[in-house]
C-alpha cells in the first residue's frame, strides 16, 4: 500500500460541492491538509493548470509529488491510502457497486437537473426542471432506505462514500429552495432524506467546510449577474 507520508493539499474553491467531497474525506480520516483557494474568476493558477492539465478543473488533491483529479476518484484514493478506520467505501462488493452507481447518477443526472432549474427560461420550463429534481430525490429517498437499513447514513453508522457524494450538494440545494420557494426536501416525499441532511451537515467532518446558505446564495446571484444564464452550483468551470 502506498505511504501516507507527504504533504497534503487540496486545490479548490469554497463554493464547489466537488471540492467539498475531498475535504470531507480528509476530515473523516483526520488528515491534516492545506486548502489552497483558487480564484477561478481571475483565471486559473499555474498550479492548477500544471496539476490537472487534462481537465483544468478543481478539486485537485496534491499528496507529496502525486496529483489526483476528479472528486470521486480523490475520495477513493483517500480511502485507500489512509486505510485505517473509518472506511469510506462499504466493505462488500455489492454495496460498493450500489454506492458507486448512485454517486454516478448524482453527477451525471441529478446535479445537472438541479443546475437546469437556474437555466430554465419561462415558468413552464422551470416547473418541469423542478419536477425532474423532485423525481430524482424520490429515487434517492428509496436508495437511502436500501443503503442505510435503518441506520443514520447511507454508509451506515458513519458517513460514507454516498453520503459524501450526495451531501456535498446540500448547500446548493438549499440555495435552490430559497430561490424557487419550493422545499425540495420535505416531510411528505423525502422524510428520511430531510433528517439525514441535518445529520450530515452537523457532522464534525462536514460542518466547517459546508458553506452557509446565505453566502452561497449571494455568490450565486453574483455569478448569474456576471454570466447571463449561468446556473448556481458551477464550482467547477
Amino acid at each position: 500500500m502506498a505511504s501516507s507520508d507527504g504533504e497534503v493539499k487540496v486545490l479548490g474553491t469554497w463554493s464547489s460541492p466537488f471540492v467539498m467531497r475531498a475535504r470531507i474525506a480528509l476530515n473523516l480520516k483526520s488528515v491534516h491538509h492545506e486548502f489552497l483557494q483558487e480564484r477561478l474568476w481571475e483565471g486559473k493558477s499555474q498550479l492548477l493548470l500544471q496539476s490537472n492539465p487534462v481537465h483544468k478543473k478543481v478539486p485537485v488533491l496534491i499528496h507529496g509529488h502525486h496529483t489526483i483529479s476528479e472528486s470521486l476518484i480523490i475520495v477513493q484514493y483517500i480511502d485507500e491510502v489512509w486505510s485505517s478506520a473509518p472506511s469510506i467505501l462499504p466493505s462488500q462488493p455489492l454495496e460498493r457497486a450500489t454506492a458507486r452507481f448512485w454517486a454516478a447518477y448524482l453527477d451525471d443526472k441529478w446535479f445537472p437537473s438541479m443546475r437546469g432549474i437556474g437555466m430554465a427560461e419561462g415558468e413552464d420550463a422551470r416547473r418541469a426542471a423542478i419536477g425532474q429534481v423532485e423525481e430524482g430525490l424520490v429515487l434517492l429517498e428509496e436508495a437511502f432506505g436500501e443503503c442505510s437499513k435503518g441506520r443514520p447514513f447511507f454508509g451506515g453508522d458513519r458517513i460514507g462514500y454516498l453520503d459524501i457524494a450526495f451531501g456535498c450538494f446540500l448547500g446548493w440545494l438549499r440555495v435552490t429552495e430559497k430561490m424557487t420557494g419550493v422545499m425540495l426536501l420535505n416531510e411528505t416525499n423525502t422524510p428520511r432524506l430531510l433528517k439525514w441532511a441535518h445529520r450530515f451537515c452537523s457532522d464534525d467532518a462536514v460542518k466547517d467546510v459546508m458553506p452557509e446558505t446565505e453566502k452561497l446564495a449571494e455568490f450565486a446571484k453574483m455569478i448569474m449577474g456576471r454570466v447571463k444564464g449561468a446556473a448556481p452550483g458551477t464550482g467547477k468551470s
Partner: protein
Amino acid sequence: MEGGVVLLDFWASMFGMRVRIALAEKEIKYEYSEQDLRNKSDLLLQMNPVHKKIPVLIHNGKPICESLVQVQYIDEVWNDQAPLLPADPYKRATARFWADFVDKKMYDSGSRIWKTKGEEQEAAKKEFIENLKLLEGELGDNLYFGGEGFGYVDVALVPFYCWFYAYEQCGNFSIEAECPKLIAWAKRCMQKESVAKSLADPEKVYEFLLQLKKAYGIE
C-alpha cells in the same frame, strides 16, 4: 438465477463489451442475454429502472448497472485471477481517471462524427483525434495502459476500436494515420482471446450504424 451470472447486453454496445472482456478475463461462466433496445424487456426495465439501459450484470439475482461499476465489481468479487485494477492506490486513481476520461470524452465525440456533417463533423473529428492523442500520451511506451499488463483502462477503451472503422467511413479519415501507437495497442489487445471474442465485427458495426443513421434521418 441464484449463484449465476447473467449479462443483459446488446451486441454492438462498447459498454457491454467492457463487461464481456472482464468476465472472459476472469474465466467466469455466464448467460449472455441479447436485448432488443427498441422494445425493452420487462427484465431489463425491472433490473435497471433508473436508466433502462444495457449492460446490466445480474449476479445472484441482484443487478449491477453502469459498465465501469460492473467491471470494478467483477474485479473485486473474482479477485483470485487476472487483476484489472493495480494494487497501488495512486496507480488505481490514475487508472480510474483515464477510464473516466474515456467515458466523458470518447463516446460523445465519436457519436458526433456520425451524427453531424460539414463544419460540425470536422470539429467532432478534431476533438476525437485530440482525445485519442491524449490517451496515446498516457500509454507512452507501455504495452498496455498502466504499464502492468492488460487492465482497467485497456478494458474501458478497447471496445471503441471495433467502432473506428464505422467512424472512419462516416468521417472520411484515417485514425491509424493520426494515432499509429494507439492502433498498435488495439491490435495487441485483439490478440487476447478475451478481447477478440468480445468485440463486434467492425463491418457489422458499420452496417448497424448506417441503419441507425437512417432511423435518425441522417444522410
